[in-house]
């Protein structure tokens, strides 16, 4: 999730507040595909389909909602991006609960409980971890080995530079937006059996994503990975050592601590804005 937010931010230079909504859509698509089309045993087939559909959705929405920001007719770009993506979040959440109601659903899982060393782990959780790692590997290969991946990395370095090289920046933005929300949908689809499917199920993951970004530093991909790890450790430690019901508060305390000692995050650059 944090990777998706960072991915969009580093290229399109905006925070997409609606990430949670795409997570939610990913989980709903997974639910529908598993229960209506593929069946529980072929859940792994449903995952790429859900992700691909959300990618298309993101790529379709970008030109309508985000591109006007760069066309020069928007006076305050940040304000525009923030309000529009928050409105999009509310819109998608409201439509979801309008259609499906507030019920919590689950696509079910064909995986039983696995015992890993001393710890029993739910199969679905474990599968989510494995698939997420595989997907991150593929994402890494895509970014490192393909022309498009190279252009995306280049655009994160310099938006002017890629235009000079002859890249159509509008297409890159569209792809990056689609790709970023597809990453959110991947999380949504994989975690659907664990955290269930309901209209606001993306909120918690988005919050974790933002916390990770402050911890790791805005716009830094290694920061996102390290921040995620640190957040996970602190939350589990807090759960074990203090009290489990405040699990979500530990992360925020960590954020406050980071802001106090190193406001730009672990991997952020110290930059005075001009």
């Amino acid at each position, binding site marked *: 999730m944090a990777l998706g937010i960072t991915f969009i931010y580093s290229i399109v230079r905006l*925070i997409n*507040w609606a990430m949670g909504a795409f997570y939610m859509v990913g989980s709903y698509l997974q639910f529908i595909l598993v229960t209506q089309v593929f069946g529980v045993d072929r859940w792994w087939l449903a995952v790429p389909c859900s992700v691909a559909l959300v990618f298309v959705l993101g790529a379709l929405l970008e030109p309508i*909602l985000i591109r*006007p920001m760069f066309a020069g007719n928007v*006076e*305050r770009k*940040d*304000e*525009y991006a*923030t*309000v*529009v993506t*928050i*409105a*999009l*979040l*509310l*819109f998608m*959440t*409201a*439509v979801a*609960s*309008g259609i499906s*109601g507030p019920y919590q659903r689950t696509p079910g899982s064909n995986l039983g409980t696995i015992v890993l060393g001393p710890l029993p782990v739910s199969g679905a959780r474990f599968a989510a971890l494995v698939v997420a790692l595989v997907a991150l590997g593929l994402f890494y290969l895509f970014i490192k080995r393909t022309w498009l991946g190279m252009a995306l990395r280049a655009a994160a370095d310099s938006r002017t530079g890629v235009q000079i090289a002859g890249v159509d920046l509008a297409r890159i933005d569209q792809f990056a937006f689609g790709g970023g929300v597809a990453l959110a949908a991947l999380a949504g689809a994989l975690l659907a059996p664990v955290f269930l499917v309901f209209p*606001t199920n993306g*909120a*918690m993951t*988005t*919050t974790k994503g*933002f*916390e990770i*970004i*402050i911890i790791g530093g*805005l716009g830094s991909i290694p920061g996102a990975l390290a921040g995620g790890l640190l957040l996970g450790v602190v939350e589990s430690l807090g759960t074990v050592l203090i009290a489990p*019901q*405040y*699990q*979500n*508060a530990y*992360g*925020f305390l960590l*954020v*406050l601590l980071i*802001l*106090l000692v190193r*406001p*730009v995050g672990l991997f952020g650059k110290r930059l005075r*804005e*001009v």
Partner: protein
Amino acid sequence: MKTVALGAAAVLLLATLPGVANPSLLHLLTITFYYVVLATSWNLLAGMTGQFSLATQTFAAIGAYTTGLTVYYLHVPIWAGILAAVAVSLLCGFVLGVLVLRMRTIYLAIATWAFAETVHISLGAAYNLTRGELGLSVPPLFGSLEPAPYFEVFLILAALATLTAWSIARSPLGSFMRAIKDDELRAESVGIDTVRVKIFVFTLTSGMTGLAGAFYAHYVAILSPNIADFSVIGTIITMVIVGGIGTVAAPLIGAPIVETLGALLSRYGEWDLAIFAAIVIVLMRTSTGGIVEAGRRLLSRLRQAQTT
């Protein structure tokens, strides 16, 4: 002065309403006034100063739960609970502001989001303390839940909030705030201590929201984490955008429209939020002056079309 007199007249006129209106209308208006306060504080912060907070509803919840919990557990009088609520929300606003407002603007939005969702979830999770979704029972302010006196209280709160916003907007502080929104680096170069102004506004609006939240707690009587739901900030943003972001009148125009529409659409489920969100997106793409400005433009275009 004329504006103040006009406003005072409108408040007095509204104050007589409980004599004639039915309770459900009074309830609707009471909630509208509550939202006017929240929207005004968000508008001061985001609309006038350019600092996007996503935690307005959270400060309302902090205010509400502070008074709720102190009254419930410590059995202090209600007014002491409300005072504590204001103090705690001011303090939270100040600390968060000091930590975040030195950073680039976007950090405030990210940090307040994380703050808002953490508080929201923790309120539900701290079941032993807050009774979570079951709701904390809070004594009503006036002994009964008869809406008329609450209507008057929230009318006064909304009027005070609007008066505050109005006088700030016309004061040098108001020009500092709008200067920061327009060009923070230049504001700093001209000699404005931008960090101090931002922290001040953030703290002030946090206290204002906390106060409204505290009174709200003693109106609804059963307090649940819903008060901090993200859809609340969505509603607030919608109200301000519809009313014309950055103008003092925005909440006064936006809140009644959104509340009334919401009440009319409530029987169809949550579709009202979808409609509001769609309106916001359309307004952002066409006119940031809000619905009045958009209407004015449409009218003048129609008139032009007629004359040609």
